[in-house]
């Protein structure tokens, strides 16, 4: 019954209606705001809800086609299979181009409806323009779906009996959640973008605007953070080779909007509290969304695998490229016209929280430039026939390692400094004592680590990592202590705890990443049953190898007993899998994880005479990378929940700021 009701045709029609509603949403409120028709302006809200309803219906229909194995739909046939467990059938909905774009549009509708429903405090004119801009973005993507990548297309006349499979790499729980979370972040940046554009249209970039923009920016930044860290976690345990970040263009595509939105949430604070960096903040909001569009373009057009692949489906690539240039071009033009009016007239000294936030923004901007150039240079070089080039991790690490440490050092400085001015004397008093203390901590920590690992490769960078991280911890700890002296635990705003948690999270992530690079060790060995190998003070005994089968794959499983100082720790069972539905072999690593260290073993290829190539890793503190990520996201969430952003407060502030503007009372 449900199956027949939610047919692909219904989905197609729902998508068309949804996109048409988006057209009205993009035009009516905007026109109304210029002609003063209140009725038209008010329509934005209901149109946004209607749009959400129909896009959601379309999404339901596509999910239904996947769950009921409707292989007459081409997209389903290409990405699903009757043997798949039900939750992977559902996640297969967004596993490829068409479905993930539909998810993109759905998430945009969700954000738009959220803005429409939660922003009662916004002036009608401002809200209607914001909704109109979000509507126009939705039109762009809705038409893209309908005209170039329709997920509901049927395969006539002969549908396949069974589908091709979902790529086995993607058959994983983290990958069910990774794309929706990442998209919630990507697409969420459309909200601060729309706020920035409608503020530009009104030529009013004030602290009320920054206050409205902050929770939305923070929320999408949180999702982006969770999405990126989840992706990195997936790469670590599922790709099977123990890395956590590869500087892959697809990863870079998500990192760039994250870096810009990190800068944005910081400059929004300064814009709200002090009225400084206002035009810069607008520019960041524009860039953040443009970079998420660029990310969508890079990942979804096929240019990344090859410029030739782009040529094989020029329609899609050209469409996004055109859309991208319209969005960036028109918003930057608007900024050029209205920007100079926004020049702020507030003063602050060279050593103040403003300056430190500015330094934060500068570092993050340089970081984005590094990633952008490193990602685009090979594409540009190939497109203009300058040779085929690849840019590897050494380039990115060269910049990112020092930039990260500089950024880290400024975190506690900005946290503890006051707005306006902080004397150099106070600053230096903060620096000297904790610096000496952290030097001691670093020395002790790195020598203990070197002793534990036994063959530390780079104790200098371990020392630097431990020093910087412990310094940041101490400084933040002192800050909390001082704030608590002046106030009580419950009186400090929630966003303060959010900030502390997120910044501690950054330090924890740096700790994990730094020690991964400096003290983590790995070795490729040739082993047969009965062989021993030694790494990082651990002994690895290859005890057995088995061949067996599961419902949809064959596997070979090795058993390796790990012991240290004669005591057996764990038996790890890395696998090689061969899926029936595709000729791919998969490597399933075996991990013995802990907060202090991971032991990670992956099975390589079989060699002659029953020998195997095996990769062994001992990685101290590697889980701190993702623990820090969780802390950062949780900190962001706490900040979003702060009551400063609740509706009533905004109305009050708004009335104070803009007594001229008429705001409907609730």
């Amino acid at each position, binding site marked *: 019954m449900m199956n027949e009701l939610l047919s692909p045709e219904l989905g197609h029609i729902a998508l068309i209606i949804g996109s048409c509603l988006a057209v009205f949403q993009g035009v009516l409120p905007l026109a109304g705001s210029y002609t003063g028709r209140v009725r038209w302006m008010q329509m934005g809200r209901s149109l946004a809800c209607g749009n959400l309803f129909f896009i959601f219906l379309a999404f339901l229909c596509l999910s239904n086609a996947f769950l009921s194995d409707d292989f007459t739909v081409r997209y389903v046939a290409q990405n699903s299979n009757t043997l798949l467990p039900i939750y992977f059938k559902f996640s297969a909905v967004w596993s490829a181009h068409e479905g993930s774009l539909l998810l993109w549009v759905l998430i945009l509708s969700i954000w738009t409806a959220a803005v429409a429903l939660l922003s009662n405090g916004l002036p009608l004119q401002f809200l209607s323009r914001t909704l109109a801009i979000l509507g126009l973005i939705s039109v762009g993507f809705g038409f893209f779906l309908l005209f170039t990548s329709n997920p509901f297309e049927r395969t006539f006349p002969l549908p396949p009996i069974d589908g091709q499979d979902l790529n086995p790499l993607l058959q994983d729980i983290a990958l069910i959640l990774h794309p929706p979370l990442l998209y919630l972040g990507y697409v969420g940046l459309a909200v601060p973008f729309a706020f920035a554009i409608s503020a530009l249209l009104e030529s009013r970039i004030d602290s009320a605007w920054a206050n409205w923009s902050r929770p939305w920016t923070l929320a999408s930044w949180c999702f982006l953070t969770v999405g990126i860290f989840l992706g990195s976690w997936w790469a670590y345990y599922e790709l099977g080779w123990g890395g956590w970040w590869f500087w892959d263009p697809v990863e870079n595509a998500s990192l760039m909007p994250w870096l810009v939105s990190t800068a944005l949430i910081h400059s929004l604070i300064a814009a709200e509290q002090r009225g400084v960096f206002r035009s810069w903040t607008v520019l960041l909001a524009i860039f953040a969304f443009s970079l998420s569009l660029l990310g969508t373009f890079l990942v979804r057009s096929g240019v990344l695998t090859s410029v030739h692949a782009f040529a094989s489906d020029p329609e899609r690539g050209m469409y996004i490229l055109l859309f991208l240039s319209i969005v960036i071009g028109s918003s930057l033009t608007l900024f050029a016209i209205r920007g100079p009016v926004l020049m702020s007239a507030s003063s602050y000294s060279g050593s103040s929280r403003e300056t430190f936030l500015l330094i934060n923004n500068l570092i993050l901007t340089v970081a984005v430039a590094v990633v952008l*150039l490193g990602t685009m240079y*090979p594409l540009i070089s190939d497109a203009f026939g300058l040779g085929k080039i690849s*840019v*590897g991790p050494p380039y990115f690490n060269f910049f990112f390692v020092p930039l990260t440490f500089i950024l880290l050092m400024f975190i506690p400085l900005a946290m503890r400094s006051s707005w306006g001015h902080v004397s150099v004397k106070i600053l230096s008093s903060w620096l000297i004592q904790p610096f000496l203390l952290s030097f001691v901590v670093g020395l002790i920590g790195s020598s203990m680590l070197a002793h534990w690992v036994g063959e530390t490769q780079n104790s200098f960078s371990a020392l630097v990592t431990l020093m910087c991280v412990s310094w940041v911890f101490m400084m933040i700890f002192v800050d909390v202590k001082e704030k608590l002296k002046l106030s009580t635990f419950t009186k400090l705003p929630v966003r303060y705890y959010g900030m502390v948690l997120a910044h501690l999270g950054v330090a924890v992530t740096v700790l994990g990443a730094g020690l991964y690079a400096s003290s983590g060790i790995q070795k*490729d060995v040739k082993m047969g049953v009965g062989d021993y190998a030694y790494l990082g003070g651990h002994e690895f005994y290859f005890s057995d190898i088995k061949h067996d089968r599961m419902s949809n794959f064959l596997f070979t499983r090795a058993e390796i007993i790990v012991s240290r100082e004669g005591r057996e720790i764990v038996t790890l069972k890395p696998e090689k899998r061969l899926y029936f539905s595709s000729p791919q072999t998969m490597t399933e690593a075996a991990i013995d994880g802990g907060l202090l260290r991971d032991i990670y073993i992956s099975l390589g*290829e079989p060699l002659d005479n029953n020998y195997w*190539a095996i990769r062994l890793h001992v990685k101290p503190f590697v889980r701190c990378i993702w623990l820090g990520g969780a802390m950062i996201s949780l900190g962001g969430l706490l900040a979003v929940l702060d009551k400063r952003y609740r509706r009533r407060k905004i109305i009050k502030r708004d009335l104070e700021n803009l007594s001229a503007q008429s705001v409907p009372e609730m």
Partner: protein
Amino acid sequence: MHPLRKQRMQWICLMLISVSIATALIGYILRQNANFFYTPSQIANGQAPIGVSLRAGGEVVVGSLKRARESLLIEFHVSDDWHSVKVTYEGILPDLFSEGQSTVVTGKIDDQNILHAVQVLAKHDENYTPPEIAGMYEDRGT
């Protein structure tokens, strides 16, 4: 000059200087770390620089894969049908690496024209051909 305007000017100058330094540095490091792609023919003809990190690719010649007895040292030939290049590598090969399939390796060439690879990539699924290799055959076709 008005103190505010003066402050703003200082900031703008500072930013301009730092932006240009950053851009120059990024460009320089980018050029240092860019690995150019060479075909086996180009390497055989001596067109590829010696001792510089580069990428090469082609088909792994059937029957050319040799393994050392005691270690994971591997040796194979990569060919574009006209010329082939000897590649050495120590470590684990990717899952989809096999003779007769295409591969892309990153490494340095020594004075005997042997490529010492630090990374070996195979296509990561059956529908995907490394773009450099697809391009290589395309160029030859025309």
